[in-house]
């Protein structure tokens, strides 16, 4: 897994290939934002999570071992690739991002910049 552009192929080339849109959960708390993405079949080596300007890019390619002479009889997952892109808001700090992949679920955590954390404003009167 990487946090920079070190995918198997250049992002510009990968962007042209059709990909599935993985389902995600996005949760925000006082400290930052957590993104969970379902990427079944994607091993760590084929996952690419990076921030490009203000855009978070999640890309992954499945690494399933398939027997030879196989003929598909029922297909619900029709492409071996996932991609999803999010525009980040300014209060998030791209330098403070962590990502982990466990049994096909990616968890990305992006912290908020210090100045953007909520603070209680004193009400005078």
């Amino acid at each position, binding site marked *: 897994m990487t946090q920079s552009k070190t995918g198997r192929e250049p992002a510009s080339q990968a962007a042209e290939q059709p990909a599935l849109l993985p389902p995600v959960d996005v949760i925000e708390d006082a400290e930052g934002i957590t993104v969970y993405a*379902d990427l079944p079949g994607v091993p760590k080596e084929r996952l690419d999570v990076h921030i490009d300007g203000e855009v978070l890019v999640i890309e992954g390619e499945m690494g399933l071992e398939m027997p030879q002479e196989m003929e598909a*009889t029922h297909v619900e997952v029709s492409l071996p690739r996932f991609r999803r892109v999010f525009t980040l808001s300014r209060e998030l700090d791209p330098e403070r991002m962590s990502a982990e992949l466990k049994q096909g679920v990616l968890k990305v955590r992006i912290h908020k910049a210090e100045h953007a954390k909520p603070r209680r404003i004193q009400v005078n009167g």
Partner: protein
Amino acid sequence: MPMDFSLFPRDLYAELERLQRQMQQSFELSPSIRGLARGAYPALNVAATPQSAEVYAFAPGLDPKSIEVQIERGVLSISGERAESLPREDERASVHVNERFAGRFHRVITLTDDLDPGEVRATYRDGVLHVSIARQKAAQPRRVPVN
């Protein structure tokens, strides 16, 4: 695939839905009585080889020990439960997007008669459950020696 051209394009979403239906129909030549279940968890791909049937269940985020795989009367069933990743209500967090499945799931596939329910292997890796069911020896292609 035939396309409709019109001076007044239809609603884009309706058009996308129509395309998706056409895709589905071209993939599934014989829809099951149990329905299409598109968008269900886990998504299933099924393939056939001369020696086996291969089932791939795209079920990310499970504890392998909690997955139940059963074959009964020619029906393969895959069930289990996926934990919720959303915060509890008392936590101070807001959910902006919630698309991922959580809760109990159960999917079934009817097997063909030539499969051997005694010869099944199941592995779970990177969030994909792979069930391989061998064909009965008598149903496998074999070379007949010519004397």
